[in-house]
């Protein structure tokens, strides 16, 4: 079946603008995760959804970042008043149950560039 998909694949925006990044998880997966990956680094956790609710949002860097998953499937990561430091690849992953030993499958990522 289809894997995790993310749109857009690339997003270029200007400092101060608002952006939305979309993630479509693997069908049937209850858990969804957002990570951010800077150049030369490993992914860093942002937020984790179990169903429609955010089970852990402690990785969000500040209140400009927000994510939703209203129907327990597709998720949108929203960034307000973007800053140049927000430039990174934003990765989404999903897993079947969201337990600690559940494999997380990643999408291709959205490369965000803030000019």
């Amino acid at each position, binding site marked *: 079946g289809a894997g995790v998909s993310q749109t857009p694949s690339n997003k270029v925006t200007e400092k101060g603008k608002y952006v939305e990044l979309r993630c479509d998880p693997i069908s049937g997966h209850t858990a969804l995760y957002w990570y951010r990956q800077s150049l030369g680094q490993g992914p860093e956790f942002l937020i984790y959804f179990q169903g429609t609710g955010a089970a852990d949002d402690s*990785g969000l860097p500040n209140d400009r970042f927000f994510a939703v998953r209203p129907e327990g499937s597709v998720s949108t990561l929203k960034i307000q008043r973007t800053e140049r430091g927000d430039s990174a690849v934003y990765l989404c992953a999903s897993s079947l149950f969201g337990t600690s*030993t559940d494999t*997380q499958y990643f999408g291709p990522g959205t490369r965000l560039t803030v000019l």
Partner: protein
Amino acid sequence: GESVGLHLPTLSVQEGDNSIINCAYSNSASDYFIWYKQESGKGPQFIIDIRSNMDKRQGQRVTVLLNKTVKHLSLQIAATQPGDSAVYFCAENVNRGSTLGRLYFGRGTQLTVWP
């Protein structure tokens, strides 16, 4: 705090040789470890995982070894091929309350396979 790191940032091997990529972790509460492969412009791809109640697990051409005494993880790739060239990340999941779904990644090792 939790951290996963790698001993070597780069590894170059000749096609057909075996590769060993190492990883150190610091949290004894981690109960699940995963190796991911990331090719340029793509998301991390699951390779193999191991639970903390095991010390070895084998897949197709790959073996993961876990030494909990010294908090060390390694990935062995047999008969390395040019298609194995990528960045390899180890990640851990700490089985603890609200951070249940969170993976902690190391910086990654760039594996280059030359003919």
